[in-house]
């Protein structure tokens, strides 16, 4: 006990040196554990989500981008496919198709255009408010609600795609009608709208005055016996309300409207296999993926990188340990007179060794405690860190 008391007094007196030593030891202990935590969490997040999503259909191209965007709403947007892809699966009667359109954002959070089937598929229930019912309504994930302080009754405006895209997507003021229960998945960070609302954001659907009854000539481009062509000056409503919802409409055939991907939930394994077989043709411009297979490939790459990182960290750790040993050795040399004094007083060499060992143990214990605390902090934020580092 006296050894620890004396060691503690020495450590406290030499705060800066102690702090540096503790920091070094903490870092070399923390890094590999933190990395392991992050990788385990990323594996858990990525895998559980991938396993729960049987099939994804999208445009041919990067399988990883398609899966990451569809499952985790990552920033990389694959090429869009047409709504007709959903009808194709529906008509096959092999799977339930759930369209997903993730092109837009609102205050940094992805807007996910989909159908009500998505919520049943992911087992998402509103914690407050209700699910979306009418065009222009949105339901937000738990984190969106917390970060933006949104509750049912609030509103959220979609973000323009680029600052200077004057002819592009209009910001739409959406009404928040519900906040989902915390799901501990990417769904917590999403703003969910009906697919049709996403198309309104894109400008494929809109609401405006009755064009056939316009009196302002600057709003009418051309008038014929059966059709009135309006000019670009015609004001499109940027918010959908009870008063103007009746005016909202879509031009053209919605079968050609864009979506990012289709989540297909097959009736059974056999149906899933048959469905996959239908996309094997060389002329096929869509691909069908099993997310688990794609994510397994990604994880293999991540773990390969991790092995390299482990090797690097090991070398750094070795260098750090050698530096720490050098610090202790130099410290011993500087304390020679102290050692001589206590030896003269009557202290044995074993006791001297105990004193030094006590110092080392206190430093290691402090580092261990700090490392544990930092790991707790990392653990608390792994969800966010994994999203930022691996999902994007």
């Amino acid at each position, binding site marked *: 006990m*006296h050894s620890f*008391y*004396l060691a503690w*007094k*020495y450590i*406290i*007196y*030499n705060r800066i040196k102690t702090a540096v030593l503790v920091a070094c030891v903490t870092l070399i202990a923390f890094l590999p554990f933190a990395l392991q935590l992050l990788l385990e969490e990323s594996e858990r997040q990525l895998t559980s989500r991938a396993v729960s999503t049987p099939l994804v259909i999208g445009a041919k191209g990067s399988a990883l981008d398609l899966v990451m965007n569809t499952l985790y709403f990552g920033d990389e947007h694959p090429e869009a496919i047409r709504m007709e892809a959903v009808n194709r699966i529906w008509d096959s009667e092999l799977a339930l198709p759930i369209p997903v359109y993730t092109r837009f954002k609102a205050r940094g959070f992805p807007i996910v255009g989909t159908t009500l089937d998505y919520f049943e598929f992911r087992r998402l229930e509103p914690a407050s408010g209700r699910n979306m019912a009418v065009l222009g309504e949105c339901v937000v994930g738990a984190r969106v609600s917390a970060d933006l302080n949104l509750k049912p009754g609030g509103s959220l405006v979609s973000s323009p795609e680029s600052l200077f895209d004057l002819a592009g997507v209009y910001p739409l003021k959406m009404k928040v009608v519900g906040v989902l229960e915390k799901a501990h998945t990417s769904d917590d960070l999403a703003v969910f709208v009906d697919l049709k609302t996403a198309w309104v954001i894109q400008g494929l659907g809109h609401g405006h005055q009755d064009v056939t009854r316009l009196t302002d000539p600057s709003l009418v481009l051309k008038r014929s016996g059966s059709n009135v062509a309006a000019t670009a000056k015609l004001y499109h409503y940027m918010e959908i309300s009870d008063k103007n919802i009746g005016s909202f409409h879509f031009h053209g055939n919605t079968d050609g409207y864009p979506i990012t991907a289709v989540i297909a939930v097959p009736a059974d394994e056999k149906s899933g296999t048959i469905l996959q077989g239908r996309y094997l043709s060389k002329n096929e411009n869509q691909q069908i993926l099993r997310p688990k297979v794609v994510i397994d490939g990604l994880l293999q790459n991540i773990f390969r990188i991790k092995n390299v990182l482990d090797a690097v960290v090991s070398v750094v750790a070795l260098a750090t340990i050698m530096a720490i040993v050098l610090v202790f050795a130099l410290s011993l040399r500087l304390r020679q*007179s*102290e050692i001589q*004094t*206590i*030896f*003269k*007083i*009557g*202290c*044995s060499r074993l*006791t001297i060794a105990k*004193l030094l060992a006590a110092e080392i143990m206190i430093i290691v214990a402090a580092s261990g405690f700090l490392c544990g605390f930092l790991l707790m902090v990392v653990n608390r934020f792994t969800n966010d860190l994994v999203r930022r580092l691996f999902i994007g």
Partner: protein
Amino acid sequence: MISGSAMVETESLKFQYHESSFHLSIPYFAVQAGEKVAVVGPSGSGKTTLLNLLAGILAPMEGSIKVGKTAVSDLNDAGRREFRIRNIGFVFQDFELLDYLSVLDNILHPYRITDALKLTGEVRQRAILLAEQMGVDSHIKKHPKELSQGEKQRTAICRAMLPQPKLILADEATGNLDPENKTRILDLLFAAVDDHGTTLLAVTHDHELLRRFDRVIDFNHFQSDGPG
């Protein structure tokens, strides 16, 4: 005060450092119990070596050393260490306090570095009492760097006296002090050894203080070769 029985006694003492030409040879040396003896001599004559031999820090090549009733020269390393910490107090020229301990912790230090001494409440109270006697009681929470030279040496004396040793060995205890402090330190040291009946053997270069000792031993009388 001479009690009449030898506290320290050496016979035919011979010592030589490894790989050194220094050679100490003392046919006979004795200090009576309760005596305050000064040891003078030129630098390198072996005064500090003698103190180290008496304390058991060094072992003689020949001869015997008795301190009290114990034949120190017959003990092994561990034995000499234990004997030293129980029975001998050191006061050094450079004070040799530990910077990272408070005044009180420095005084109590011997009790924390060996199992031979038990740190109890009674010991703590004695430490505080000693500090009062030495006039450093108001500084017990301070660290050595906050003390004057005199205060440091008085703290060192407390540390040496706390285990109630039979023998105090002071090696140039006033060497680094100004004249006023020298006198004061010596007064305090003498008062402490008188209070506890401790024998004092002090190496000093300070001839002005010699007359205060009971006896002065001139090292020139002992044969030695080379620095020691």
